[in-house]
């Protein structure tokens, strides 16, 4: 595991989901051919997990396994999904009628920003694609009947080129023009949240996160800069805008309120923030999901 002379201390992401035995570790637990409706809940190895959504009041995330995207419950059990194929899925959240996920589908050398929706988290259907754009959507949030996804068009080298905002209203998903976000064009959107007062988005540059707010998702105002953190969750609380994320100098789990101090979250050092539901933050640790109070 280690290169000679280096001091590698830990390997993460390679363990199986919580409570798994040898079956999962050898990759036999999941089969991509299983249909969504009949797939039994089974443990799976995931090397990546994106987003948090509620199904029947229970928290789930989308995990990427060797067999494709799986719906992972908080206890670690996973079921195969259909409809996402080999897509780049970057975020997922609860929305009216089920779950919504965003990312991109590949089109040769280009990638097409895409939105998928699902009633049960297992059968996914692409409900929007921004053909003609080479880019991706990286975060999605919802509030009431509205949803907002944020991403970027990409350069040949896959660096963000220009901000993309897509909004869902009664008529469906539509690319919307924005003002006040151009300063974030070359940065990656990492969190978006809706609330009674509108929308909050966070983008990440080399130094940290920049938070901007908007009453409608169209006209944006810079709000705050947070050094040394990639914010993955935003929530408006009585105390202000609460954020959760990972440090960039190292990758420790951290939370804080904009304008106030930050503190470490009591999860293992390599925990990767997935988001928050209510007062709990959720993290991917060594292929497992753990939660903590924030």
């Amino acid at each position: 595991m280690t290169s000679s002379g280096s001091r590698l201390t830990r390997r993460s992401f390679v363990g199986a989901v919580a409570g798994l035995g040898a079956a999962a570790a050898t990759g036999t637990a999941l089969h991509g051919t299983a249909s969504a409706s009949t797939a039994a809940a089974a443990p799976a190895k995931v090397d990546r997990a994106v987003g948090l959504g509620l199904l029947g009041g229970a928290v789930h995330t989308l995990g990427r396994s060797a067999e494709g995207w799986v719906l992972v419950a908080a206890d670690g059990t996973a079921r195969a999904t259909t409809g996402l194929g080999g897509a780049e899925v970057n975020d997922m959240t609860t929305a009216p009628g089920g779950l919504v996920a965003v990312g991109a589908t590949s089109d040769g050398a280009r990638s097409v920003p895409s939105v998928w929706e699902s009633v049960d988290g297992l059968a996914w259907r692409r409900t929007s694609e921004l053909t003609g754009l080479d880019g991706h959507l990286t975060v999605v949030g919802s509030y009431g009947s509205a949803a907002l996804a944020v991403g970027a068009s990409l350069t040949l080298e896959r660096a963000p080129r220009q901000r993309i905002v897509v909004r869902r209203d009664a008529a469906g998903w539509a690319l919307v023009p924005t003002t006040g976000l151009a300063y974030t064009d070359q940065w990656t959107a990492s969190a978006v949240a809706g609330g009674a007062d509108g929308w909050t988005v966070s983008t990440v540059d080399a130094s940290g996160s920049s938070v901007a707010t908007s009453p409608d998702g169209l006209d944006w105002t810079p709000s705050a800069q947070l050094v040394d953190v990639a914010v993955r969750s935003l929530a408006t609380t009585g105390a202000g805008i609460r954020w959760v994320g990972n440090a960039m100098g190292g990758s420790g789990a951290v939370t804080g309120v904009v304008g106030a101090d930050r503190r470490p979250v009591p999860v293992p050092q390599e925990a990767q923030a997935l988001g928050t539901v209510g007062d709990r933050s959720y993290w991917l640790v060594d292929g497992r999901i753990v939660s903590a109070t924030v």
Partner: protein
Amino acid sequence: MITFSNIDGTPVYYWRTNRGNTTTRNWNATQAFYDRLVLWIRDLRSLSSAYGSVSYVVSAGFYVNKAGQHGAGTAMDIDHIRWSNGTTTSPLDRAHASGTQQIRRRYLALDAVARRRFRFVLDGWYNAEHADHIHADFGGLPTTCETGSESDTKFVQAMCNNFMNSGLAVDGDWGPLTQSAFNTAKSRLAVTGDPHSSSSVWAGMMSKVAQKGFANQAF
């Protein structure tokens, strides 16, 4: 993913919150990316040996919790390098835009070393976001010089300007003037073969550029 605090024995620090900080950090990356970092730093040591050893690297991040190569644990942001004889090169201080040619050449040398091992290297000429660091990732491999790449083209234009006084616009557009200057550079550096199709030819050319840059020599 693995956790590391040094690359092949060279410590990696974080200065974005506190310049000069030498606290150990637990960085994350995939094993494959870390293995490539080892090759990169061995290249760097060997090509800059006149400066002594590489004392430390300063980074703005490897694994970063966001979409893309950083989120996959397959990217690095370089802020600063220091050698044992006291020499430094500092993308964090926008060395690519320094008024001193020697500082720009040393930055280009670091840039060239990264291009030996990484195909997508984004530097201060590439765009505003990369004005204060050099980004290198696992995208687009293998390493060759692509005339359709804005990153490669701007690097070649800046290289020709700083080592040959070519007077090119650093615009990312590979036109006849850039082609002509590139041909001259290949000739002066005794590069044989095609850097656009052969990784070994391009990597060899980058070693020669790095040696010239660290030695502050025109070509």
